[in-house]
């Protein structure tokens, strides 16, 4: 079983729709969760991060974490064509080997297209 599972899509939605992106994970040691947005041929851009279960909102974006189910989500409200990108989930546990070294485990990304 892979540590992080993410549906690769592609996911195509009309402009203005609510988008739901999800990841599941198998290792309960993961405690810190992030979402990245990656435009084609660009580096990933940190979108949101959360360290606890529950919801965190930032503008049109809401990150949701359910540690009991090992399930995280990113919701995009009023989706725009500029939201068309690949969305990567990432998560971390502290590794004692290597002081200050925090490793991230990434999902493979979901490709989203928002159609005008």
């Amino acid at each position, binding site marked *: 079983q892979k540590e992080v599972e993410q549906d690769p899509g592609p996911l195509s939605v009309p402009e203005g729709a609510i988008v739901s992106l999800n990841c599941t994970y198998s290792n309960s040691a993961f405690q810190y969760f992030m979402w990245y947005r990656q435009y084609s041929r660009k*580096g990933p851009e*940190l979108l949101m991060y959360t360290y606890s279960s529950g919801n965190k909102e930032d503008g049109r974006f809401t990150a949701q974490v359910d540690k009991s189910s090992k399930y995280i989500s990113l919701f995009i409200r009023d989706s725009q064509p500029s939201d068309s990108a690949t969305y990567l989930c*990432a998560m971390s546990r502290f590794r004692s080997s290597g002081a*200050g070294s925090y*490793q991230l485990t990434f999902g493979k990304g979901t490709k989203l297209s928002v159609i005008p």
Partner: protein
Amino acid sequence: SQTIHQWPATLVQPVGSPLSLECTVEGTSNPNLYWYRQAAGRGLQLLFYSVGIGQISSEVPQNLSASRPQDRQFILSSKKLLLSDSGFYLCAWSVQAGTYEQYFGPGTRLTVT
């Protein structure tokens, strides 16, 4: 604010040739630095990370190596490239302690022919 640079942006190299990719970070001191490779359909693969000058940890055995000659400079090298080294190489940085987020550079697209 912090900025991360990578160069070159694009590189086409023949099999067996050497490689040197450079990454520099501005606006922060003593960062953790990371090299990732992103291949189509395979996600982000951590290659190396560094917690300080001269301190390199390798995550995946391969014909690549990394060096950190200065606090905010990270170099990825190879003596002889393989076809399988083609991919999108990303450098990232994070603070030493307290938070877990990593910030990525623009990437270098390497094609080995």
